[in-house]
């Protein structure tokens, strides 16, 4: 990275808590709709990647410790993918150890692992499902929240999506998560699938609701260019009206098990909202590690390179000449004391570095904040930017209030349910 995070406008507090996102770019097989950065990989690659991630954690922590003048506090950790549950519990354990030794991981930190029903405990033939033992090991390692990529409880839909599990396996995985003692867990479902009807969607939702999860993400399918879905002949997509009805049903059915919508596609029992994801919408600092991971630290956005081979090479510790082969990690190398200049992040690791202007940050404050049902606070806006919300966005806010798509409660503005349906149109207006 060329620019060192300066602290700048956003850096009022020297040691604001940080979220960590660790990208695990592996999966057993690519799903047909997926355009995330992930691919099947050999066990040795996963091992080398784990080592590289540990190294990046150490170096990034050292870097931040220098620039902030103290070891950063970490309040959430998220293992995302890909399919993070493809790593072994031991590998996860090493990564968490690395975090603990390089950062100040808060006692109450939320530590989430995304898991794919049918992957936990893989590698061993015959036990393709989420294995109770593995889940217990993960819990012991420190994972305290599991996010299950169920997507659907209908086999027909699962096979169309190219998922590797059946509805029955998904169900058993959910129960295993609960049985392993995770009281904070979530599952993902997808609406807007080709050929999906309202009653199909209700079926998946009701199955989910019966499990009484404390959190559920209801995403809707976006057919992305370059994915098999984009070129496949598919059954017709639900109409706009059906799609809207699905969203309405989601809220109704989930309300029955105590979940309320707190973001466009997220529902939770009060107190179980994802703290990590909420951070993305509220301008919380986060450091992304691993290939393609995005970061927002001290007013600067950047992204890691996406080339797996290069990433591993850059962080192998053997980059230039003789270096200590520091591939095994969690061995507690000293990060605080700046002894050797090899202890710095490779220059070419990060790209797309963008120092946000006040205007950028205002835009984001609005279009991210309005994703949440709680919306944004005018007072908070004033505190962050030193100008009143009204002086910047007064006209747009009043216009949107008049349409009934935005509502105001005290100093907070939030999209109404109808507003959320067309949020892209509304949010685009906050761009300068």
């Amino acid at each position: 990275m060329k620019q060192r995070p300066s602290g700048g406008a956003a850096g009022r507090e020297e040691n604001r808590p940080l979220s960590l996102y660790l990208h695990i770019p592996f999966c057993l097989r690519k799903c047909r709709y997926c355009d995330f950065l992930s691919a099947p990989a050999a066990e040795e690659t996963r091992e080398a990647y784990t080592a590289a991630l540990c190294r990046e954690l150490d170096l990034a922590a050292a870097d931040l410790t220098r620039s902030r003048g103290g070891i950063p506090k970490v309040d959430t950790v998220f293992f995302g993918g890909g399919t993070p549950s493809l790593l072994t519990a031991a590998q996860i354990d090493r990564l968490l150890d690395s975090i603990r030794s390089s950062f100040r991981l808060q006692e109450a930190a939320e530590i989430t692992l995304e898991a794919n029903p049918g992957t936990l405990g893989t590698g061993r033939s015959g036990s393709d499902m989420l294995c109770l033992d593995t889940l217990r090991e993960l819990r012991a390692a420190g994972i305290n929240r599991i996010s299950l990529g169920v997507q659907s409880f209908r086999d027909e839909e699962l096979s169309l999506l190219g998922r590797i599990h059946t509805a029955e396996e998904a169900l058993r995985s959910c129960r295993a998560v609960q049985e392993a003692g995770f009281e904070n867990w979530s599952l993902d479902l997808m609406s807007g699938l080709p050929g999906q009807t309202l009653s199909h969607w209700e079926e998946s939702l009701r199955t989910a609701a019966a499990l009484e999860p404390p959190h559920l993400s209801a995403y809707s399918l976006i057919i992305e260019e370059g994915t098999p879905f984009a070129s496949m002949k598919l059954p017709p997509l639900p109409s706009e009206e059906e799609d809207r009805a699905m969203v309405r049903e989601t809220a109704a059915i989930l309300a029955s098990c105590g979940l309320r919508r707190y973001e466009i596609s997220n529902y939770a029992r009060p107190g179980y909202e994802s703290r990590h994801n909420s951070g993305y919408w509220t301008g919380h600092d986060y450091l992304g590690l691993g290939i393609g991971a995005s970061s927002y630290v001290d007013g600067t956005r950047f992204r890691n390179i996406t080339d797996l081979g290069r990433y591993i090479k850059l962080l192998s510790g053997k980059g230039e000449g003789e270096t200590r082969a520091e591939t095994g990690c969690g061995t507690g190398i000293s990060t605080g004391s700046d002894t050797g200049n090899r202890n710095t992040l490779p220059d070419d690791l990060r790209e797309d570095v963008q120092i946000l202007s006040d205007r950028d940050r205002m835009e984001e404050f609005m279009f991210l904040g309005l994703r949440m049902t709680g919306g944004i606070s005018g007072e908070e806006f004033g505190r962050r930017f030193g100008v009143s919300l009204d002086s910047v966005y007064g006209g747009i806010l009043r216009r949107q209030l008049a349409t009934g798509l935005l509502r105001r409660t005290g100093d907070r503005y939030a999209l109404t349910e109808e507003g959320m349906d067309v949020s892209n149109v509304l949010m685009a207006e906050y761009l300068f």
Partner: protein
Amino acid sequence: MQERIRNFCIVAHIDHGKSTLADRMIERTGLLTSREMQSQVLDNMDLERERGITIKSQAVRLIYKARDGQEYFLNLIDTPGHVDFNYEVSRSLAACDGAILVVDATQGIQAQTLANVYMALEHDLDVFPVINKIDLPSARPEEVRQEIEDVIGIEAEDAPLISAKQGIGIDEVLEAVISRIPAPDGDPEAPLKALIFDSLYDSYKGVIVFIRIRDGQIRRGMQVRMMATGAVAEVVEVGYFGPGQFIPCEELSAGMVGYFTASIKNIRDARVGDTVTENQRPCAEALPGYKKAQPMVYCGLYPADSAKYPDLRDALEKLQLNDASLFFEPETSLALGFGFRCGFLGLLHMEVILQRLEREYDLDLISTAPGVVYKIYKTDGTMMELTNPSNLPDPSNIEHMEEPIVSAEIMVTTEFIGPIMQLCQERRGRYIGTEYIEQTRAILRYELPLNEIIYDFFDALKSRSRGYASFDYDLKDYETSQLVKMDILVNKEPVDALSFIVHAAGAYDRGRRMCEKLKDEIPRQLFDVPIQAAVGGRVIARETVRQLRKDVLAKCYGGDISRKKKLLEKQKEGKKRMQIVGNVEIPKEAFMNVLKLDSSD
């Protein structure tokens, strides 16, 4: 001297090879080497070269050593080939003594061939034909030769068979110019009498006036007067036309073609068609045929960004320096804000101006649907010319209305006579007659309201004849007509920029199709948008653009905020193409596209 001058032009249907022949003649006479030849030397506007058409007339003097050993001065005056510029063509022809008629050996005579020949003959020009494109496999020179004799009635037996593209037969053409076009007459001692056939604005020299000297002489320092405009000026420079350049000389005398400058700042002081004479010793009477070029088609032009209004005005003023036929005056639209009502000679002229404004002046424009000039006779006995439908007086104050009618000639192969007649019928055409040129081709004569042909008639003609029909028209006169104003209401509000005048009989149908068209053009908004067509306050058609119900990003992008922002930026970018009218976003093209209603094929 005079007997060694030839003033001539080339006339042809579009694409029959006029400009290419001109290029070859310039090349052959040795003033330009092949290397210097940029294709189509005479067409020096980018747009002309791009579209392969001649918009402004140009002239060039060639020096040709003929087979008789004599050196001749050949003044080639290039004429525009489009019906929009008929008046300019007419003035260019008036500067000539003869014309070369180019006919395509594969296509034979076309509508504009006839129109141009008739115009040349009207100007008493000696016309001789050449048959071009004989190198093409489908060439049928003998048939075309016969056609020229039969249809036009000029002798074509020794018409040179040429290929301008391949450079075949160019010498024959040059020799024919010498032998078949008369040398100019005129008295060099008489008072100056010169025809302005074109002009050009130059920011250093002022207006450069292109003239053909009928009598007398013009030289530096002379006080001249434009007889129609009365403008008087002192001649600063006289000269003749080299290829792509002006070559000053001492004087021009009777029979010659050249230019003069006189520090004239306004092109309207030296109008095409006017007669130049000596102020102190004027000629007895002006040359006949002068008329002011009248705009036939009007539309509203508005800057997409209202802050660019002064830029648009500056650009129009600059274009007008070179184009006296471009008319504009400020107007205001409730929907579009401040802009200009602009008048053009025709649709091509309009298109050319719009493109130049967008390209050369980098302006983003909204143009309203083009319309013609209606004559409104009011009950108080006065008459007004209506160029903007929004200005139509209250119907109770209108005695009657008149619309312009054109005489049209459509040349078509017989198999398409049916569809073309149907098209003319649909466009309120009055059938005049059919004339068979040969067994498979005929000329259809119609009188059509100009209003019905200005927009998409030409496209419709081409598509219904698979490209075979050709078309020419002439303004005939004005006729009383049952006309009404159609108002378009978007979200219950009338949008003045979408109003148009339509014949009462076709109003219902037009209104319905207009609403359907707008329904397709206007994207869905956050609320239902009714679109209504109304005549005299009565709604005759209605459509609804249904409310947008869903546009949301319910996908997990995690921390990749940039990707989210890019999507929103794209959305915002789309909005820039929109004009907000009331609280509805209407795409800028919609104001123009609404007239494109012909979808019958």
